[in-house]
């Protein structure tokens, strides 16, 4: 075919092929392959001063990169030896792009050198190749930029999501921390156990965005007692707080007790007991419970629940959050409970002791006093009998003597720690005045008017003053004691100051420990200040409502 028609036809076909490549490397490979096909060449390559961009004709992994770079740099015609194909005549044409690149073409055989028209075609192909590769490079860069931009946008979206999730989690954690702090503050202030339980029920319910929260304690014989209950404002939630309820098989409480692990109840369990009836009436859709572990034993549980009017059950992971919360609370809760129990126990001790004293008082009045009256009457009758037989008189005297010994024995038996009658009859003010009068150290009283107080308080205050006066006389060598007492708001305040030696130390076994116990038992507070040589100052504060029921 005449070169005149052959040349443009080949160039057009080459151009069509190379421009169909989608990337710069693909365009390079396409160019060398199509040039080799068009010119029946064994080798075609695009060679830069430092690398081979594209090449065909050598076995895989056996491209003589250095030889090709040398030939490309020289630019002159060379002979290339291709294993298996023999010597090839190499021609080179420079490319506008990539920078410094050469198009190398080598054909086997004695007439392997390019004819004039073929060399022209190669130059044309080189121009097309440069343009196509440069364009592809721009497109590649643009594509890479777009991909990078897409990647960054995706990354930003991911980071934003992560940040939002972290912020939400932080808010949650902050909520949980605040809740814990509120409960911890209550515990530190030694608030009443009921208040702490109520706080725990409410905080747990609120943190998990539930409709109700409760704290319950497991009792003996398969029962539990709901200690506190919180429900979303506006919800009528009649649960038997304080009442012992029997555990039912399959109930959340039973599962928590048995497993000692958090548990969930998402579906309605067909049960027929009291709990099921309550749950049915309330329409609880989803409940979770976590155990309160005290001393390695399941002491109770904290439970939260949502109503069936909610579209979704409590979310996954709620168990762990409740468990974390409960675990942190367990210590506080058990401390509060232990404290509450101790206080109640001490109160009971005091009440028992005081009751004993009242019984002794009655015994004295009803027993010994009556016997003494009887004895006096007997003796008066003996006297009035006048000239009686000496033997009869002796017998009567002997009987009276025996009766006196018997009364003395009984009196000795019950004489310790008797309620002064004046305290139970006249109240704290007159009793303290009587005490001050009998004291061996001059005592100045300053008593506000406040009427009668609950008996345990009056008894405690009386004995505190009594013990303090005894201490002042026996240990402190005081010359005067000032006692002031008054009621402010809901607290009875008692101050006792002496001018003695000071240096009183509860640890050294003074009677102060007994005072501390007594004050503690009533939920009160005792402050002792006794620097050596500066006298002793006691301040006692007793709540008017001691927080226990006898």
């Amino acid at each position, binding site marked *: *075919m005449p*070169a005149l*028609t*052959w040349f443009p*036809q*080949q160039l*057009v*076909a*080459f*151009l*069509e*092929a190379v421009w169909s490549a989608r990337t710069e490397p693909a365009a390079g490979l396409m160019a060398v*392959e199509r040039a*080799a*096909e*068009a*010119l*029946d*060449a*064994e*080798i075609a390559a695009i060679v830069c001063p430092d690398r081979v961009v594209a090449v*065909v*004709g*050598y*076995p*895989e992994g*056996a491209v003589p990169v250095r030889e090709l770079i040398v030939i490309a740099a020289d630019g002159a015609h060379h002979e290339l030896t*291709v*294993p*298996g*194909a023999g010597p*090839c005549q190499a021609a080179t044409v420079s490319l506008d792009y990539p920078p410094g690149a050469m198009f190398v073409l080598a*054909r*086997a*055989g004695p007439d392997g050198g390019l004819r004039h*028209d*073929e060399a022209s075609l190669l130059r044309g192909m080189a121009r097309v190749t440069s343009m196509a590769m440069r364009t592809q490079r721009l497109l590649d860069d643009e594509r890479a930029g777009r991909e990078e931009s897409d990647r960054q946008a995706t990354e930003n979206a991911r980071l934003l999501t992560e940040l939002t999730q972290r912020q939400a989690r932080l808010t949650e954690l902050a909520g949980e921390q605040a809740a814990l702090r509120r409960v911890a503050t209550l515990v530190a202030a030694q608030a009443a156990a009921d208040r702490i339980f109520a706080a725990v029920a409410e905080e747990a319910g609120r943190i998990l965005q539930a409709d109700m929260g409760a704290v319950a304690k497991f009792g003996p014989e398969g029962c539990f007692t709901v200690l506190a209950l919180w429900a979303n404002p506006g919800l009528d939630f009649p649960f038997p707080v304080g009442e012992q309820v029997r555990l039912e098989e399959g109930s959340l409480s039973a599962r928590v007790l048995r497993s000692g692990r958090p548990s969930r109840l998402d579906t309605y369990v067909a049960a027929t007991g009291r709990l099921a009836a309550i749950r049915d009436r309330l329409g609880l859709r989803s409940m979770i419970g976590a155990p309160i572990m005290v001393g390695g034993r399941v002491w109770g549980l904290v439970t939260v629940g949502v109503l069936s009017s909610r579209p979704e059950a409590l979310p996954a992971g709620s168990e762990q959050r409740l468990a974390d919360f409960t675990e942190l609370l367990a210590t506080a809760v058990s401390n509060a409970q232990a404290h509450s129990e101790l206080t109640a126990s001490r109160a009971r001790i005091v009440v028992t002791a005081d009751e004993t004293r009242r019984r002794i008082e009655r015994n004295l009045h009803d027993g010994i006093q009556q016997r003494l009256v009887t004895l006096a009457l007997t003796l008066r009758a003996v006297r009035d009998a006048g000239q009686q037989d000496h033997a009869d008189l002796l017998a009567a005297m002997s009987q009276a003597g025996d009766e006196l010994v018997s009364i003395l024995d009984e009196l000795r038996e019950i004489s310790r720690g008797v309620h002064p009658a004046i305290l139970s009859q006249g109240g704290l003010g007159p009793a303290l005045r009587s005490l001050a009068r009998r004291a061996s150290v001059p005592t100045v009283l300053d008593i506000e008017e406040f009427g009668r107080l609950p008996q345990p308080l009056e008894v405690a205050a009386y004995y505190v003053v009594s013990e303090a006066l005894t201490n002042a006389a026996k240990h402190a060598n005081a010359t005067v004691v000032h006692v002031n007492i008054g009621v402010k708001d809901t607290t009875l305040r008692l101050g006792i100051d002496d001018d003695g030696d000071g240096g009183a130390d509860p640890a050294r076994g003074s009677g102060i420990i007994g005072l501390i116990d007594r004050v503690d038992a009533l939920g009160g507070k005792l402050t002792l200040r006794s620097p050596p040589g500066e006298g002793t100052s006691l301040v006692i504060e007793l709540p008017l409502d001691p927080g226990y029921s006898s």
Partner: protein
Amino acid sequence: MPPDRWFAVGTGDASADDAGRRAADAALLHDDAKLLIVFCSPAGNLRDLIGQVRSRSGGVPLIGCSTAGEITTDGPRDGSVVVTALGGDGFVIGTAAAAGASGDLRGAGARAARCLPSPASHPHRVLLLLTDGLASDQDEIIRGAYSVLGAGVPMVGGCAGDGLKMRKTFQFHGGRVLTGSVVAAGIASTGPLGIGVQHGWRAIGEPMLVTRSSTNWVDSLDDRPALDVFLERLGADSGQFRPEDLPALALLHPLGISRHSGEEQVRFITAADFTRRSLFSTAQVPQGSLVCLMEADTSAVLAATTVACYASVAALGGSIPLGMLAFDCVARRGVLGQEGIEKEIHGLADAAGGAPLAGFYSYGEIARTHGLRGLHNYTLVLLSVA
């Protein structure tokens, strides 16, 4: 003691129950076979047939494909099985199959090419490729294989046929019967291997510019619907022309893509879209190419056969051929007619000098000896094994 290299062919009637066994027994002259090559008619139970061959050859590497007619020393056949065995320590063989090749023809070509062994003691090498004759762009297979082998290793082979049904061709590898695949045998030999290629077609009329094409579809020639231009050039009335008459006409008039050497690269038109007025070729016709309509006559085709034979045997450098493999375009069968192809086969047998001949009528021929191009149509490709 068996010879260092041997080449034997066995044949059988594919419809016979024991065709595979009989052909294998005839080919397995000695017990040191290194490669079996099976060409057979697509009719019948191919899995059973390959199983029969394997029952005789055991684990000897096997490749093969379905055909549009088989070739042996005795002449052209249809409905037969031809088993060729290469044996002896003079051959070192590797085989490969790239299944599901249609999605990545270049990758399939590269994978197939990697089977070629390269022992220093066996310096003569060739890659034998058998491909799916209905795959879209067979040039990509050649490019893929070339990227692995480079210019130093020639390729030969053919595109599998299906008796001109143009529906599905089969390739064999080991005991497997594949479709849409490339199978290959890398042959390294102590003896020379000679390749001959020739078609004998000539251009008629003025060249035409391919103004629109995509892969195998030629949509327009000189900016007019390709089918209309094609029919007009051949004197047919494009308005009255019946689609069922196209294969016979197209078979005798392929497209020739102009080459700088003056020898056209022939492209076989196998179908047309009468709505879009497009032509379909088994190989790519690049947009921007100049193409001619081509024709041939019996004498030109037979003259080409002679040239191919001469080139193939001459490439042996004086060695005597042990056998010859032929990949002959099915369209040449159409041009030559029964008498012509018998004459052609006898010519081949003579050129082989009494050595056995095996081959098949193909949908495309592969011969790459020089440059990168390796896919042909309407061509006879011969591999002489010395």
